[in-house]
């Protein structure tokens, strides 16, 4: 199998790349840092004797890199899945955020992912076997609040996009999955006080890899977040507006 991973050089993307490589899958890795990608690719090639192609690109800076992606997919003769563990947050993502920064957060967290999947969709539908698209949302998008405003909005848009994608893929061989993530043990959450423990990346990645063939739509990880999300949605406004988190 050949999988494409966006945001592959750190955190969840890196862990996923390692898990997929350990199973012998060939990889196309995209990340903004050429140096980190080169290190990742060398490591995976040497350890697992697989093919790894890298595309250093800032996906928020435009779609030009997608030409290169298409070229590589054609060279590798197909694509079996896309993983999009990509995202960005800002500590000042409240109403004081500069408009340009709002644009950047929207771009990284939603538009660039939607754009990539839309462009590569034909490669997935052309395959004679099951293919997969995996997106990653955030618990922050369950109900809007005064922090992480642009980030949450973009992630909610992404969730809606994946719902539509799943609907569009219903008659095809493409499986569309969306993980709504709670706190993870990555550098994105590092140094921040979190209300609940951060989940280990390795366990999440094992679950993702185990679930690749399953058509479950969207799921929370860790699972207890589904209960918290329900509570948040059901909290009456007069109480919700008093919450500071």
């Amino acid at each position: 199998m050949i999988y494409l991973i966006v945001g592959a050089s750190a955190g969840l993307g890196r862990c996923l790349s390692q898990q997929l490589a350990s199973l012998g899958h060939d990889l196309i890795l995209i990340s903004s840092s050429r140096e980190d990608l080169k290190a990742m690719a060398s490591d995976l090639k040497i350890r697992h004797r697989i093919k790894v192609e890298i595309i250093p690109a800032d996906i928020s800076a435009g779609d030009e890199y997608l030409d290169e992606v298409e070229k590589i997919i054609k060279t590798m003769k197909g694509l079996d899945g896309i993983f999009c563990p990509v995202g960005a947050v800002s500590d000042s993502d409240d109403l004081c955020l500069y408009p340009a920064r709002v644009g950047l957060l929207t771009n990284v967290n939603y538009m660039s992912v939607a754009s990539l999947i839309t462009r590569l969709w034909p490669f997935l539908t052309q395959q004679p076997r099951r293919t997969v698209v995996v997106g990653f949302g955030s618990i922050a998008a369950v109900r809007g609040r005064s922090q992480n405003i642009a980030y949450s909005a973009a992630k909610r848009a992404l969730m809606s996009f994946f719902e539509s994608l799943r609907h569009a893929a219903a008659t095809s061989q493409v499986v569309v999955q969306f993980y709504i993530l709670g706190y993870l043990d990555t550098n994105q959450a590092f140094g921040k006080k979190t209300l609940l423990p951060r989940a280990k990346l390795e366990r999440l990645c094992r679950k993702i890899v185990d679930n690749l063939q399953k058509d479950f739509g969207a799921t929370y990880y860790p699972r207890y977040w589904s209960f918290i999300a329900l509570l948040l949605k059901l909290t009456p406004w007069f109480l919700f507006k008093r919450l500071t988190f």
Partner: protein
Amino acid sequence: MLLERKRFVSFDGGITENAEFLRPDRYRMVEASLGKKYRIVRGGGYSYAAASFGGGSIVQDFTLFNRVLEFDSQSGLIKVEAGISLSDLLSVTVPRGFWLPVIPGYPAITVGGCVAANVHGKNPSQRGTFRNYVEELTLFHPAYGVRSISELKDPLVFHLTCGGYGLTGAIISATLRLERLPGSKTLVKRISVGSFNEGLEVISEVGRQNDFAYSMHQAYPDRKIIGRGYVSTGGMVPDESATWQTNAQVKMINASGRGRIPFSVFGGLRTRLILTVHWLTERAKPTTVTEPLYDSLFPFVGKEHYFTLYGKRGLVECQVIVPYKESEQFLNELQRLLLKEQVPAVMGSIKLFKGEPRLLRFEMDGVCVALDLVRCEKTMRFLSAMDQLTISTGGIPFVIKDSRLPAKTINSCYPEYELMKEYLLNYDPDRLFRSEMSQRLGL
């Protein structure tokens, strides 16, 4: 860059300190400016001394820099990031028929840590120390940026870094010279000995013909027990298979997990009882066994309870090299002191050593003696006497193994102590990289 606060403890349990730390996973995070803030890099955190935290430094956890960057299966050169553990490294190289002949006793120790402490393996008289297998290092220091150093290109910085305890900057990657592996199994022969001196005699006889040779002795201060033990010696068995596996139950211990028992199980008659059971168990084992390379290289895997039994207060290890000609006298005096003071010693070990002393690296021709003791007041008094004994016999203590070593002892034992200080100050006038250990030793 966001920092977290965390409580760090040295592996021996002797030093505990709260410090800010960060966990870079991208190169740009390593190079990101921390201004003039003090910092120190941490790998596996297995130093008995506090070499990877303290001194007001921000701790940079490098364990996510654990990738293999280049591997040449012809020459055996491998370039790895410094945070890769020894077990992880060997899991890549052993199936390809290569190994690193200098491997310290625990698999989760990182390559960066091995370089910084210039560690030794199971037969330093034959294989030397870790620096002998370092071809090149990539080092980052804010004043110099990222640069490659090698013994040929930049000998001073190379020697300041190999055995420099992380004070010259962050080691990002290391190119290592691997050796061909004749097989992935070892034939281990265990020879029973009755005293430290007998152990030394046996090692002197068998050490030169074997890949590894070391002795383990019981050190409980009782004439019937003290010094009895085994010399383990052996080498690789040529075979076709090159597999990296262990017979032991692998459940890694770390510095904070080591102290999970609130009290020391060792002490007084309890030590005697444990050592008697240990002795009887060891005697029941066959004297010659063939075992996986993993188990020979990492004899403490599966026996981690040895360290946890010392409890939260921890253990003290002192490791010294004394010149050959003084070794017999040293061992006699050591035994006399242990018996006279009734020091709560548990285990000891002996290896032969060959090396070229320079700066503060733990190397010289002689006999390497290590002793594990229960941490208490009596032990501390004994160690002061040990320091004097080491000085008087012309020996050197290993600073990474003893978290209480005073600067005065180091100054007396290492002729180039002042030179090391001077070099470090010239290299980095701000002395940005520092730890509790470097501060204690006045570096």
